[in-house]
């Protein structure tokens, strides 16, 4: 099969009822918190903006990059969403994107939706979001430090998602952990590199032009943020 994109979407039937149920409850709980945060922090009239940004995440998930041996990986975007929207709003947006993929594109089983939202959205968005937020006061206030943190966390978010997927499949009794974990972590170590490279460049482009749109941390004036040549001209160059 030429160039099939590797994805973590778990289909129907791979998870036991218990695992799917627990993952579903965790996902519902995180989405409920996300809804409360949105209620508190977000003017309801700004919802169209969230919708358009969900479409953005959906679209950038189609960015494929080569991994190894003719396979390709694609961006998951949980860390990117967390940096741009904050961890909880990112959970909401990722849940909407993944639910749409399940309902409209039959990608990822409806019975495994909770697990997919957990693995590919919530775990990454919360882990990356909160660790970057916690580390931010300790980091030097420079562009490089923020981008390094974003890079490391986006790699880690992919690995954690892959590990969670393997664990869920193993607990369900579908595929033993000794088989999936090394394979999943091996492939996703490479996918994570692509994810980190794309996320870092994307955040750096936003940082250069509209640093006020980074919601995760208050970036303020950063050392070393001399205008990067590309982003400002990117629109003209790339269209």
């Amino acid at each position, binding site marked *: 099969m030429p160039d099939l994109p590797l994805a973590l979407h778990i289909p129907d039937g791979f998870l036991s009822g218990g695992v799917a149920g627990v993952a579903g409850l965790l996902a519902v709980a995180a989405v409920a918190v996300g*809804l409360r945060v949105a209620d508190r922090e977000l003017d309801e*009239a700004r919802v*169209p*903006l969230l*919708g*358009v940004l969900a479409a953005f995440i*959906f679209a950038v998930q189609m960015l494929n*990059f080569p991994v190894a041996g003719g396979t390709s990986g694609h961006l998951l975007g949980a860390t990117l969403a967390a940096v741009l929207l904050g961890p909880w709003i990112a959970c909401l947006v990722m849940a909407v994107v993944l639910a749409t993929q399940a309902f409209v594109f039959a990608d990822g089983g409806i019975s495994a939706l909770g697990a997919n939202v957990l693995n590919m959205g919530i775990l990454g968005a919360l882990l990356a979001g909160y660790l970057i937020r916690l580390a931010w006061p300790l980091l030097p206030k420079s562009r490089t430090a923020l981008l390094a943190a974003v890079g490391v966390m986006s790699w880690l978010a992919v690995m954690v998602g892959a590990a969670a997927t393997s664990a869920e499949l193993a607990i369900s009794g579908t595929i033993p952990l000794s088989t999936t974990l090394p394979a999943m972590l091996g492939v996703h170590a490479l996918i994570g590199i692509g994810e980190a490279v794309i996320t870092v460049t994307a955040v750096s482009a936003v940082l250069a032009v509209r640093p006020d749109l980074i919601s995760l941390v208050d970036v303020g004036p950063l050392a070393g943020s001399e205008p990067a040549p590309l982003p400002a001209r990117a629109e003209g160059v790339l269209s």
Partner: protein
Amino acid sequence: MGGLCNHALELTGPTGNLDSRVHRLDPRAKILGLITVTLVAVSAPLERWPAYVACAAVLVAYAIAAGVGPRALWRRLRVVLLLVLGVGVLVPFVRSGGARFEFGMLSVHQAGLEIFAAVAAKAIIGTTSAALLGATTTFPAVLRGLEALRVPRLLVLIAAFMYRYLFVIVEELARMRSALVSRGYRPRTALQAGAMGRVAGAMFLRTYGRGERVYLAMLARGYNGTMPQRVPLRLVGTDVAFVAGVALIVLTARLTTA
């Protein structure tokens, strides 16, 4: 070069006989009916295989009534199903237990084969029922159904706006992608994905700008945070009969032993 088509967007939306009785069912009835089929199949162990047969029969009847032919259905299932079965086929080689079968150098175990059979049946039924929902119901109708089924309104609103702009944004991204390709961008390793990051950054800024413009245009047209009321959904006898009939068939098959 990786195409821009994990999700073939052109393969969405209703198809088949658009005026069929199935297409005209209330979206809630279709969502509930098809989710019941999926959940029954997923919950059935291999010994209860008649449940798989019943679910498959219901889906076949549904597709025939909706005029969705095998060719149209396969076009939608192909991408997902080939990947799923590709992974599933590995299972018999890595699970041990039960009788052992030798095929030359390869050996598979009965336990693995059983898991593969169950997983494949469930994945095919689940994927087909989601594809049939998409083939017989427009996305806005699915959203109205979900809203009526008490999915939080904020999520439904986000999804509605997402869908409205998805196609524009995906096409914009595809244009940027072809601009990269036409300038000789051929990444061979994940480390060379940086250019796509710049595309994503530029996309975000454009998208944000578009979102703000959309929002302001909506304000100018009197938007105050709520969407105008539409004609409410109405469940009629056919809808109730459809859900009850589907549930009766698949649950009976699930609960009777083979």
